[in-house]
């Protein structure tokens, strides 16, 4: 068989650049930076990361190649390129937020893991073959486990990593079991071929076992209730930049691949989650996950005292809203899903960025945020933007994201209005969520500070947080900037 390596290489240039940057970061740190102060070191390494990621983004911006490796192990099309660009941008933001914290001396190792995790996400996005999906998922997960444990002075970090690892291993087992059953039923690895073989076989009980196993596996990954138990502990224990990375980048990639598996691989087995016309398939399973996530996430967040934990539960709830986008099982829903997770990721990185700053002056408890508006006015204004966006207040990106997802969910099934029950639940719960986001803002703006010291912020971190806040406002006011891109990529791909 003739195999053109040059073509494969040119399609995989962005991934290659990211991996090379990863090793470069390690090398630069070892050779040149050992003796510099931590903050300078982190800034320089973050710059290296940014340069690498930006060149990969730029490359994807100019080259419009499409590529499909045998058996869809590695697929490049406008949609995957767009999502990869988004992921790399999130990586850059995370890298600069790391400047603020000093949880480790092993900065080279930290950045190489960060970049390897990004590479894992990129491969994950490009995979349309169950074997490749699993491998990329493991590359991503293993990097994240280690990153979670990176704060060696903190027991909680170790605990978080262990929990994350055990749950992650379990979820990997579920995923693998599900995927292997699918292979057993169809004899295919490639998602399109699987769908073709499955056509007409969707009554096979084995297939349903496989389906549920796969969804459970990914349910762990995206922290959908009732598979969310690891999330609050992992979010709280990890170093804050890592938390933001788990909540942002890894979420975008996981949702993208989950949607792809379900849309492409299980096409024809959607079923129907409508109130009166339930048909078994994957949408009812997801509908249950979405409903539980939205309820549990929002209700549990109300009683949290730690902002990181609060954001963890809110992440579970937002996972529920995003699942609504997948439930629609069409292109429109897919576009709304990508818009939703992207804007959510931008918002949550910003929010964790603020938490990372405040953490240096005490902790991440709600009371540590008291009177922040007088200690750090700019940071507080940004936090307000992030919190209101998460709560879905217009005209911020979070509002349009929810609006878009709900609209596509209502339109589902052309005429049945079957998902109305879920949309009503989601809207009701998002009204509930306003309460706890406002609790954070109340601390910042209304309660008086016990500690009056001015909060100092590292310049790169401040810059990133402000940029994210502006992005959230702009994407909310002019959603078409992103939606247009997504729709264009969809129509081309």
């Amino acid at each position, binding site marked *: 068989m003739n195999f053109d390596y040059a073509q494969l290489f040119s399609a995989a240039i962005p991934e290659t650049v990211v991996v090379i940057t990863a090793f470069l970061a390690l090398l630069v740190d070892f050779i040149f930076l050992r003796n510099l102060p931590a903050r300078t070191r982190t800034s320089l390494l973050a710059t290296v990361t940014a340069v690498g990621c930006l060149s990969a983004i730029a490359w994807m911006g100019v080259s419009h190649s499409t590529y499909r490796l045998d058996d869809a192990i590695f697929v490049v099309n406008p949609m995957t390129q767009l999502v990869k660009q988004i992921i790399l941008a999130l990586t850059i933001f995370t890298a600069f937020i790391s400047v603020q914290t000093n949880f480790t001396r092993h900065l080279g190792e930290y950045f190489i893991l960060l970049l390897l995790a990004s590479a894992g996400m990129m491969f994950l996005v490009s995979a349309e073959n169950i074997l490749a999906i699993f491998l990329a998922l493991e590359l991503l997960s293993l990097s994240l486990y280690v990153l979670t444990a990176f704060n060696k002075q903190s027991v909680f970090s170790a605990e978080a990593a262990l929990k994350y690892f055990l749950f992650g291993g379990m979820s990997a087992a579920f995923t693998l079991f599900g995927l292997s059953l699918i292979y057993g039923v169809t004899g295919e690895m490639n998602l399109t071929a699987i769908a073709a073989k499955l056509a007409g076989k969707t009554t096979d009980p084995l297939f349903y076992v496989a389906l549920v196993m796969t969804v459970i596996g990914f349910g762990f990954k995206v922290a959908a209730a009732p598979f969310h138990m690891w999330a609050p502990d992992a979010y709280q224990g990890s170093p804050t930049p890592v938390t933001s990375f788990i909540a942002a980048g890894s979420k975008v990639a996981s949702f993208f691949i989950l949607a792809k598996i379900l849309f492409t691989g299980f096409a024809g087995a959607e079923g129907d989650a409508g109130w009166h016309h339930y048909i078994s398939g994957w949408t009812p399973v997801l509908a249950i996950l979405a409903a539980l996530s939205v309820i549990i996430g929002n209700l549990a967040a109300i009683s949290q005292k730690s902002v990181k934990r609060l954001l963890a539960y809110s992440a579970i709830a937002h996972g529920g809203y995003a699942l609504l986008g997948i439930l629609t099982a069409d292109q429109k829903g897919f576009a709304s899903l990508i818009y939703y997770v992207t804007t959510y990721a931008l918002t949550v990185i910003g929010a964790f960025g603020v938490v990372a700053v405040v953490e240096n002056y005490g902790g991440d408890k709600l009371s540590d945020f008291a009177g922040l508006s007088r200690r750090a006015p700019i940071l507080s204004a940004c936090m307000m933007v992030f919190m209101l966006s998460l709560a879905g207040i217009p005209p911020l990106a979070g509002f349009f994201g929810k609006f*878009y997802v*709900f609209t596509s969910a209502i339109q589902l099934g052309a*005429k049945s209005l079957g998902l109305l029950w879920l*949309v009503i639940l989601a809207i009701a719960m998002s009204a509930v969520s306003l309460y706890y986001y406002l609790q954070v803002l109340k601390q910042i703006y209304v309660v008086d500070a016990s500690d009056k010291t001015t909060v100092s912020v590292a310049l790169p971190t401040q810059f990133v947080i402000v940029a994210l806040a502006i992005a959230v406002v702009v994407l909310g006011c002019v959603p078409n900037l992103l939606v247009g891109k997504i729709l264009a990529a969809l129509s081309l791909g």
Partner: protein
Amino acid sequence: MNHSLLLTVLTFLPVLGAALLLGMDGEDKKMSRRFSIGFSLLPLICLGLIWRQFDSGMQGLQFVERHAWIPSLGVEYFVGIDGLGFLMLLLSAIVVPFALVATPKEIANPRLYFALFLFLQTGLFGTFTALNFFHWFIFWEISLIPAFFLIKLWGGPQRTKAAYQFFVYTMLGSVTLLLAFLALFAATGTLDFIRLSELTHSGELVSAIGAKLTWSKLSPNGLVMLIFFGALLGFAVKVPLIPFHTWLPTAYTEAPSSTSMVLTGVMSKMGVYGFLRILLPIFPEQLRAVLTPLLWLAVATIVLSAYAAFAQKDLKRIVAYSSINHLGYCLLGLFAAVKFSSPGLINEKAAALNGVILQMFNHGVTASALFCFVGFIEQRSGGLRGLNDFGGLRKLAPVFCGLMGITVFSSLGLPGLNGFVGEFLIFKGTFSLAAWAASLSTIGLLVTAIFLLTMLQRVFTGPVNKRWSTWTDLTTAERLTVLPMIAIMFVVGIFPQVLLSFINPTVMQIIQQFK
């Protein structure tokens, strides 16, 4: 049609002011007060420009701005005003600065208070200009947030409960409204009010809904009815229509007086505006189908709230219930005007609707002035505002009594003052269209007169209450605050044509749409 950015500038001026105010350094109370009052007056200048260019003889929308915004969802930035919109803008531009000036000087954390107020003004302007559901809803919702905080942070002893009740109740209405419009969007692919009303009149709306949506076993008409109820609930809560009014007395009473002024003066008009701008053009048939029960509810709103006000012992609660009562007249006139689809009775319909819109404006002016006076009383009494806590104040404060008296008489509809014109037109129109409803509602008129006069009597006449022997009359600043409003009451009362000339073309257009 003139192309200018005036409406957009008008809408976003206050929020710019709020941002500048929050960005300013220092805790100078005087400074932030002057700054915010100045900024809230700028829209009046814009409105002056609009007034000059406004073609009052023209039907249809003016000052239209229309830009593609989110093409994939059919969302446009689409603003424009007709006579109704113009009058509501004018009302917002007058009442907000009035409320700001009437805010006590010693208010805590004035920067935040004034910033929230300006923010609220943007929400109001946006609601009254937007013609695409998407951003209309944004403004509709966004005006809730500052109102919530104004009640929650500066309110009376029960403020937390009142704020949450207000928020949750109106939010619930908004959710059904949102769902209704999402369903309309799913069926028609547009969120444009004008386009939707065109679809209704060509009959395509029902067929589009029938083709695109099903729900249990409902027929297309049943489905449209369901969607209509969703929207109706949203507006009925906001106005409020009895039995959806329970949030209002607590909210108005617990809110600081200057906030109550805007709540009753402008925010309550958002509901009636929604009826006129959205429900009437898009769902005329559905509205007509349930008209008799709605008329009953309007009558109940008028009569029961008047009796309820009579039973109150707290001045603010009295004014709050009287506010429900006055908005009841608006709904009465509105429902009566829709009653017949036949082209006849144009004069009666026009009278009723002219009255409705005029009443919206008048009530905004009068009720906010009443709350302002109650606020002055509260400032002097240290928070006491029981009906029986005072007595004989006229001897100590004759100007206070006189000016508040004028406001009260305007509220109960004395000829020569603004309240009379609106109510007269409403009753004139309604009597020919739905005589029984008009007759029953006159009970409300009577009781209103009784409880308002009782209020005047208990507070200002009788023996002087020893406790208030040091009661002071209105200061010059306070007189200057209320004087413009009193002037408006007289001007509109004597020359209603000033405003009616704007309203009438709009009313005629609405009536043509009934066919």
